[in-house]
């Protein structure tokens, strides 16, 4: 599994489930009211949290990049 993750800004509507699941990886920015990935590489210790964010995102906006 690759260790980069991205948020599709077309799909994201700022529901914030990702930040709640993995605050180390996702950050909600006020300027565009969307979620941004703040880590270039996701360490193994955080992959479970990111998987959870992917599952919970209501808009299916988050994915691993290979």
């Amino acid at each position, binding site marked *: 599994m690759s260790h980069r993750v991205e948020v599709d800004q077309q799909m994201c509507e*700022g*529901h914030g489930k990702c930040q709640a699941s993995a605050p180390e990886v996702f950050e909600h920015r006020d300027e565009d*009211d969307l979620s941004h990935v703040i880590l270039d590489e996701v360490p193994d210790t955080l992959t479970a949290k990111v998987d959870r964010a992917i599952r919970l995102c*209501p808009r*299916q906006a988050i994915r691993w990049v290979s």
Partner: protein
Amino acid sequence: MSPISPEAAATLPHGINLLEGRLFQANEMHEAFRILRAEAPVHWNPGTDRFNGFWSLVKYEDLLHVSRHPELFISSKGIGGSGLRYPPPGQGEGSSSIITMDPPRHVKMRRLVNKGFTPRAVLQMEPKIRAVTNTILDRVQGRDSCDFVLEVSSQLPLAVICGMMGLEEEHWPAMFDFTNQILGSGDAEYQARVAPDKVGTFEGATLTAADGNRRMNGFFRDILADRRAHPREDDLVSILVESEVDGERLTEGDIVAFCNLLVVAGNETTRNAISGGLIVLCEHPEERARLQAEPSLMPSAVEEILRWTSPLHHMSREATADTEIRGQKIAAGEKVIMWYPSANRDEDIFDDPYRFDITRDPNEHLAFGIGEHFCLGAGFARAEVRIMFEELLRQFPDIQIDGPPERLRSNFINGVKHLPVRLTAAR
């Protein structure tokens, strides 16, 4: 409605026919879904000459799978309701709204308005939602009883969505009437405009939905003409009038369909979450007492109310290619139906799913769907339900159901038509 054939009926697990509005009206669907989850998680529910047959999906994971593959399971061939046929009564092919639109156009249309529905937008609207709630509750202050649906639960969503669309208050009752006709078409109560001999028949339902759509769309064509002549800044109709997709302005039909969707989707669901929420709180006095003693539990209570009531019974999709769900082959062109109340009581996902627990955690229910078509109004719906119960239980701490709820006959909307309540403590 026309019955399914005896041969087809013989194939139904335990004789459960999910086309029957009666099953839902009697609130007996949960037991049916429990049986289906255990014994027939993906089964073919045969149709009739007037209704499509469909694969019935009752497991949480299967709803996730279908919702997350919007190219394989498309919405543009109908999303259910109205007898599960396509095109729905009164709505020709042609103009459609986002709820019956597929990628890639879907998200482009959705993005025209979605900034108005984000958590931040909802937060900004909260004071207004609370003010409207108090106006509604002021009208029943000093009374002993009321019809909670007509006077309270339906009034808040109506005011919020009509306000966002910039519709004057004098038009709101008409919107209420149209949406009842459109989504309540199968219930005799809303068939008042068809000939008496058609009331209660399949034709009566079709005519009622068509009449509701015709009247609502006519209304919005007039509003559109008005907004073009007198542009406004901030309402949803004006935003749509000014919008472009792929360098083209929206057609009149596109805009009217969008407005129709917003009014229907905004009204017919949230009111039932509020009515259903009051019913379930009255049925569970300990949970209610806990909530009234500790109002900070309200957000999580709202999630449990949404899980419990699942105001929308189903959405449907059509498969674009041969595929499989849970090992069952599904052919291209066949319909699948996602049953939300069943997913929201799936034993594999929720501990003790038949327990109403206002502190349930986690509570990742699917009442709003998920993915491409995730409810655009979820933030508003949550805020409306929360603020209504905050104010209602503060101002009417002794409110009680005062007679059986009158439920809607529909396998699409978990509707409550009338709910007699006693507002003050019994003397």
